[in-house]
């Protein structure tokens, strides 16, 4: 790695054990400067542990963490140029909003007039300039959230860490804060490392996402990457909805696998995430990529068991001959296309290139 493309954060083989529990299992990650990077995963997947290790609240059992090429793993939290927005905000209750925001700069011994200037800048950035003399307890949850953000941004950290900062807010507020966070990230140019279990949050805000599970990084990529080209079954299942059908692999040539379905038919699917010597796997197809056709059409035969009208879409559940249930979502239009009744025998059409071969 040369000097021009220094990574903001570089994690090398980081592991963390709590007693016998492996919270992080040999994780390596590179986070580029100015990136909105999200650690996404179910609770207990190690994402918060990783964030706390970057912040300096947990020490790694092994591995290294670099902040712009500087090894920071051994540094205490107060000597790392990263700031955290905590899940429960942790605003200092005995200080005013302005004092809270100024605290980091005060500890860094920034000159007084600059502290004043940067405090009001940070507060206007989160649209709370007029609240600077209030106590945190006099603010609403959303306002407290934004004070926490201003407090973490004011010392101009190299990287901002956000630990599920929106999870304590109600839905409306959460949605508007997403746009707000994204705007502030662009405006400040600070690298954001965002932890969440909410995939919608991750997909809408992030430049890149690391999907984590069981202490491991399962896949790193853009929202489009991980939705359309998941690496494994966990990612395919965790991000959005998917249909998984077991198949036998006949051959793999240039990342295209010829797979045999339970009904004997052959299907060509993308297989860039598969080891060459594997014999069985599952194909993953998103509900909106499957199509329904009349019984006489070419396709996998099945019976409609549910039909749910969802406004923009209609969702059909189809039971196949091997009892696998598929979810198929088709957009509602002017035509009579999505009109299938429960109990009706139909064909499910998988267009070429739509299915993706995956393993666990």
């Amino acid at each position, binding site marked *: 790695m040369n000097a021009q493309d220094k990574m903001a954060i570089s994690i090398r083989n980081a592991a963390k054990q709590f007693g016998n529990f492996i919270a992080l299992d040999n994780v390596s990650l590179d986070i580029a400067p100015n990136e909105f990077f999200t650690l996404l995963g179910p609770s207990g997947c190690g994402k918060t542990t990783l964030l706390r290790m970057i*912040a300096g609240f947990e020490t790694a059992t092994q591995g290294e963490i670099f902040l712009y090429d500087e090894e920071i793993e051994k540094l205490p939290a*107060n000597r790392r140029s990263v700031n955290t927005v905590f899940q*429960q905000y942790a605003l200092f209750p005995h200080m005013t909003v302005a004092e809270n925001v100024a605290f980091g700069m005060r500890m860094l011994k920034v000159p007084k007039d600059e502290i004043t200037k940067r405090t009001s800048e940070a507060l206007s950035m989160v649209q709370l300039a007029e609240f600077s003399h209030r106590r945190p*307890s006099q603010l609403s*949850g959303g306002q407290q959230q934004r004070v926490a953000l201003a407090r973490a941004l004011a*010392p101009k950290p190299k990287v901002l860490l956000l630990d599920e900062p929106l999870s*304590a807010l109600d839905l409306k507020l959460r949605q508007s804060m997403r746009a707000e966070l994204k705007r502030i990230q662009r405006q400040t140019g600070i690298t954001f490392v965002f932890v969440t279990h909410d995939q919608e949050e991750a997909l809408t805000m992030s430049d890149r996402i690391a999907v984590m599970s069981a202490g491991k990084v399962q896949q790193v990529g853009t929202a489009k990457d991980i939705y359309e080209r998941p690496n494994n079954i966990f990612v395919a299942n965790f991000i959005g909805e998917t249909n998984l059908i077991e198949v036998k692999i006949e051959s793999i040539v240039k990342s295209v696998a010829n797979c045999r379905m339970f009904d004997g038919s052959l299907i060509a699917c993308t297989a860039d995430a598969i080891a060459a010597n594997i014999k069985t796997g599952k194909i993953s197809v998103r509900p909106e990529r499957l199509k329904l056709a009349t019984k006489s059409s070419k396709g996998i035969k099945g019976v409609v068991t549910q039909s749910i009208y969802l406004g923009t879409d209609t969702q059909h559940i189809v039971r196949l001959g091997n009892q696998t249930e598929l979810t198929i979502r088709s957009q509602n239009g002017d035509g009579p296309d999505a009109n299938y009744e429960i109990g009706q025998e139909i064909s499910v059409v998988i267009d070429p290139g739509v299915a993706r071969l995956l393993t666990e």
Partner: protein
Amino acid sequence: MKSLDIKKYPGFRAITLFCLFILYGPMLVIAVYSFNSLRSITSWGGFTFAWYLKAFNNPTIQVAALNSLFIAVVAALLSTMIAVSAALALARGKTFKGQSALFALINLPLMIPEIVTAVSSLVFFIAIGFNLGLLTILIAHVVFCIPFAYLPISARLQGIKGHFEEAAQDLYATRWQAFRFILAPMLMPGIISGLMLSFIVSLDDFIITNMVAGPGTTTLPIAIYGMVRVGFTPEINAISTVLLLTSLVFVTVSYFLSRNAPKNAKTKPLQH
């Protein structure tokens, strides 16, 4: 909770008044008669401050009062410092085996009969050849004041939920700065409450003090006891009233501080 309104029980008012009278009546009598111009405690001869003046000018009481104040102040400061450290270690450190046993050990002096502590302290000091005097009183007071200081402080600390120390350290504060600027101010009502309680407990103590004081060293309670044995004078009323008022003020302040404690201890979001 209307059905449980205790005021509706028959005789509630009478019983309450009777209990309060038994508790505070004698003290009230002492306080009132400390202003009596007669030496009697049964007949009123008119209002006077004379006994207060006399008490304040009594050299024995002066020395005893100074000793008491000195011991109470130093014992309160030291025991509160120890209590803060203990509370922080127990609440903020990692949980360890025997944690609840340790908690019980810290608070045990509250349950042990004072005379036992007194005798064992005396035996201990004699066994190690320590000269009895002001210093032995001080040591003993620091020890038995710790649980009184510890309780309000640890209660306050338990009310502080959230990652405040981590937040401070994340914002470039050293561990000391995190304590000095964040945790200590948040703990302050508990600390003040602890200081006051231990000050009062030290100021009022008789049994242990009497045991480890050694010859010639007096504190106010010991001086009062000595005077009562020789013969009752209204000076005792006056000095007791001063002690009573001091206690009352301290306990009241301590009560109000700890009552307000949980209110501003947390910054929980309003929406959840």
